[in-house]
């Protein structure tokens, strides 16, 4: 599933990132925020209009990003 489809407060792991599907500047920022395959991720909050943007936890940081970018991030839910 993609990050934008991950329900709130469910732990997941990034399985793949479509680096070419987003702009180079966005890709660079994602990397700087620590987005990488195999990293734990969890959606925490969504914006007031249309659930956009999304605030998710990556490592020990909370990052706000738009749904359009979250589309490029594939995740697998952690088995409880």
């Amino acid at each position, binding site marked *: 599933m993609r990050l934008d489809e991950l329900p709130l407060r469910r732990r997941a792991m990034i399985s793949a990132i479509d680096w070419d599907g987003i702009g180079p500047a966005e890709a*660079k920022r994602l*990397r*700087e925020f620590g987005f990488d395959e195999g990293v734990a991720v969890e959606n925490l909050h969504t914006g007031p209009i249309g659930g956009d*943007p999304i605030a998710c936890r990556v490592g020990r940081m909370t990052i*706000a990003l738009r749904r359009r970018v979250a589309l490029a991030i594939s995740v697998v839910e952690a088995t409880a």
Partner: protein
Amino acid sequence: MNQAPLVALVGNPNAGKSALFNALTGARQKVGNYPGVTVERKSGRFSLDDGRPVELVDLPGTYSLDPASPDEAVTRDVVTGHQTGERPPAAIVVVVDAGNLDNHLRFALQLIGLGLPTVVALNMIDMAERDGLTVDAEALARELGVPVVPTVAVRRRGIEDLRVALGGIIGATPPAPRGDTPPADLVALQRRARAIAAVTTTKPEVHRSLEEKIDRVLLHPVAGLAILLALLFVMFQAVFAWSEAPIGWIEDGFGALQVAVADTLAPGILRSLIVDGLIAGVGSVVVFLPQILILFLFILLLEASGYMVRAAFLMDKLMAGVGLSGRAFIPLLSSFACAIPGIMATRTIDDPKDRLTTILIAPLMTCSARLPVYAVIIGAFIPARDVGYGIGLQGLVLFGLYLTGIVGAMLAAFLLRRTVTRGAAGTFMMELPRYQWPDPRDILIGLVQRAWLFLRRAGTLILTASMLLWLLLTFPQAPEGQSQVEYSAAGRVASVIEPVVRPIGFNHEIALAIIPAMAAREVAVAALGTVYSIESDDEAVLEQSVTERLSGRWPLPTALAFLMWFVFAPQCLSTIAVIRRETNSWRWPLFALGYLFVLAYVAAGITYWSAMALGWA
């Protein structure tokens, strides 16, 4: 010539770098600019434990040495010794958040790889402990090969140790670079950082952090928005309510000064220059210091607590509707205090088109310089009547003016994004920092810097404009029986402009006031004050405020058109100069000047004609 060794303070955003800078240097700070670029250079001095003086420079926070913005480019160029106008640093202090080593060590590794003498400040160690993390500073020092000092900058803990550690590496031969040079590519660096973080940090079971609990309320789709609106309401309310008393003191002070000078000097040119030109001009501007400081107090508190990014998060989708991003919210909010820091704050916007659009609409936010104009005109022409529910008509008009500016800015952004700044939609990607109690000392340092900038402006630009205006109004001297204002040089210039602004309801005095107001909007008030004070040679006029002098002199449609003019008109040379500096060309400041004047003329015209048609004259 400054020969003290230079120490560069570097780190990720949200690592507590500025607090550490304040803790090390105290109030001994200097704010300047790097030559050729618009990035602020903040530096300060302090002594090492052995008494050697060093100069500390606070570099813009960045996530890597691969710059995405002009700010980040300066950080890279300073630490690599390539920045013009800056000597190469003798040492660097890398600030990392002890609770976020996973991410912050990546940049630290990159910096250590430069081979300069380096100390790592393991900052916010208290917050990490609050989360139940245990960080082994000694193990970290072994892994990184440089000294590591635990600090809590906002509580001034570990600052002495940091001085000692710096003393140990400055001037000493740097250790030979370790065999394993850090990998250059971001992903590999990140993996190495994560590995080091894993061996130096003991993590408890992941639990819901305090941030998450607070954010469930503050970022709630309904409650979060309501809280943001309430905060903004309280902020603007406070700007007026809290400032009343200090404004009264400043007014009384300048009034007493005018009377005292008028009593000591014989009537004549010199007395007129000092009383009507100098004291009246500067006084009418300094009066707004309390309001500016209250607004900045709120903005500094919102920034330091970590709330500002949450506000950007809440506003992002709305801003996206007009082609901007939530990031633009922060500079636009600052522009309510003054467009200059607002425009400078746009540097954090990565997308160049987003940034340019934000710069172009920032002057439409009602800055504090418009307040004097609004306050005087509303006081003189809008009756202090209650419109029901305890809402005053004057306050309502003021609110309407603020709203007009915001709506105008959004419409302008919408149109600009589809024409001159057309391009791919930008994005919104930001780190939500941890909440923390702002340190009163850091806030105070910020406020003092703002107050100083404002007073310096009042003492130079506005003082000069006031004196110049007085000169132009006083010479040539009118012969007996003729109006001095009409006869003066300024009066003649105004007569040339008058036909242009006559259709939108402006009279001769307004035409006269809007010329010097180009220097700064507040001067319009001083100008009107001076015009009506020179015109009537009555002693009693001195004691009157500008509001009292104006009261009833203009028809209502003219007063309303004048207000509307000030919502849109780019009456501030400093703003134009900043746009020139920030966009590095004359094209955009001239464009802003043009489009804002056209908007101002049309909006004032529509207001005047509508008010006339409604029979409000």
